[in-house]
């Protein structure tokens, strides 16, 4: 068709868009699920944690607070020396400060921290954003399985 003057062409574009279905999602009723790798919230697998404090030290925002104590555990082999194991008392992540950079999840040598794409945990009071050990444990349920990688990828799927 002949090159319409820009003014008419522009009107055509807006009319065409008006007749096409809208792309917006009506949030409270319909929900768009985020990508499985999305960094929504950090989940803690308590049994893996050995209170090595690496995550608390590497965190740029200083938003991980950890307290633990040592305990004696029965030796693996009988007659052996009783093992002294660190046990976690307090593991809080303050999501008011966290910038979701993921250094803690990556630096943890014992795979105790995982990413979960869940994002609906906003609070009315900012102090409630301090998730304690128990709340972080609950997030473990929402952590997806590491997904298969694209063809041609060699490295194993990391968390």
């Amino acid at each position, binding site marked *: 068709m002949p090159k319409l003057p820009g*003014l008419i062409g*522009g009107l055509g574009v807006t*009319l065409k868009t008006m007749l*096409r279905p*809208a*792309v*917006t999602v009506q949030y409270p009723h319909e929900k768009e699920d985020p990508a499985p790798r999305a960094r929504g919230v950090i989940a803690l697998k308590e049994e893996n944690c050995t209170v090595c404090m690496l995550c608390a030290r590497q965190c740029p925002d200083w938003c991980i607070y950890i307290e633990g104590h040592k305990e004696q555990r029965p030796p693996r082999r009988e007659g052996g020396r009783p093992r002294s194991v660190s046990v976690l008392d307090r593991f809080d992540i303050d999501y008011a400060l966290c910038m979701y950079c993921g250094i803690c999840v990556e630096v943890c040598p014992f795979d105790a921290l995982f990413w979960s794409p869940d994002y609906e945990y906003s609070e009315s009071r900012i102090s409630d954003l301090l998730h304690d050990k128990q709340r972080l444990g609950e997030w473990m349920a929402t952590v997806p399985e590491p997904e298969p990688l694209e063809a041609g990828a060699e490295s194993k799927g990391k968390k």
Partner: protein
Amino acid sequence: MELLALDIGWGTTLAIKTIVVLIIIPTGALILGYVFLLKMMSHMQSRLGPMDPGGFHGWYQLVGDGLKFIQKEDVMPAQADRRVFAMAPAVVVLSTFLIFAVIPMGPDLVVKDLDVGVFYALAVSSLSVIGVLMAGWASANKFALLGALRAAAQLIAYELPLLLAVVGVVVQAGTLNLQGIVTAQQDGSIFGFSGLGEPFILTQFIGFALFLVAAQAELTQTPFDMPVAESELVSGFMVEYTGFRFLFFFIGEFGTAFAFAALAATLFLGGWAIPGVEGDWANILGPFVLFAKLMAVAFLMFWVRFTYPRLREDQLQSLAWKVLIPLGLLNLVLTGVFKVAF
């Protein structure tokens, strides 16, 4: 009012008429605002607009907004010129109500059937310039002052093209009376076929286009929204207004759009008349017909508003003086020649 075959005094009919007009303008503004600003604009921008308030497609949104505005705190700037600041929105809205005194919605449904209806309507519509200037000056805000000065220059510059567009219609209809114009369009015929009547849009197409452009400028809508340029002057002369004063401006803006669309429908699309409908039926059907034509014209105006960027001040003025006014004069000459020739 013979229609209802009651003989109610002159005072009560006037009271009824004013109440009707006082109801029509805000509802008209809300309908126009809702249909075009909320729903059409959002669909044009591939989104749905308000869906939740009021259940079906968020119809309650603007009513809710109105209530919200009323209960908002009415802030007045410290150095504001208090009385002028308070009066300004009233003046702007006044001009909208006055226009509706003349627009006919049926053979008998008109507040006052003035013989100089068109002249009166255009004269009153330029009242809002004073209101805008008052608002801009009184709010003691540099952005508001800039916006008001721009509005003054623009509204005055676009009075002339508006006038010339309408004069063409008046020459063809032979009368300034709006009822007369409507009847002239109703029983006219185009080349012998009188089924559709003869809406002036067919013969006065230049006038119709001119009227739309000038009305767009009168309403300070894009591409002529320099006075309310949201990316420069934040919101021009309305910047310091809150609460129900801002509601006045909102109703003023969309009420004037409603009024101008009604005026355009009456002048160019044959107002309330459908050929072949007379007497009482016309009184009942008239308002709906006018409303339908009005919405068609308003669709054109808002469609342009949501698509185009904004002209700069000097381009806006040169467009008015160098293009629209010569076009208006040409249209006048053509109408005169045709009037005499046929």
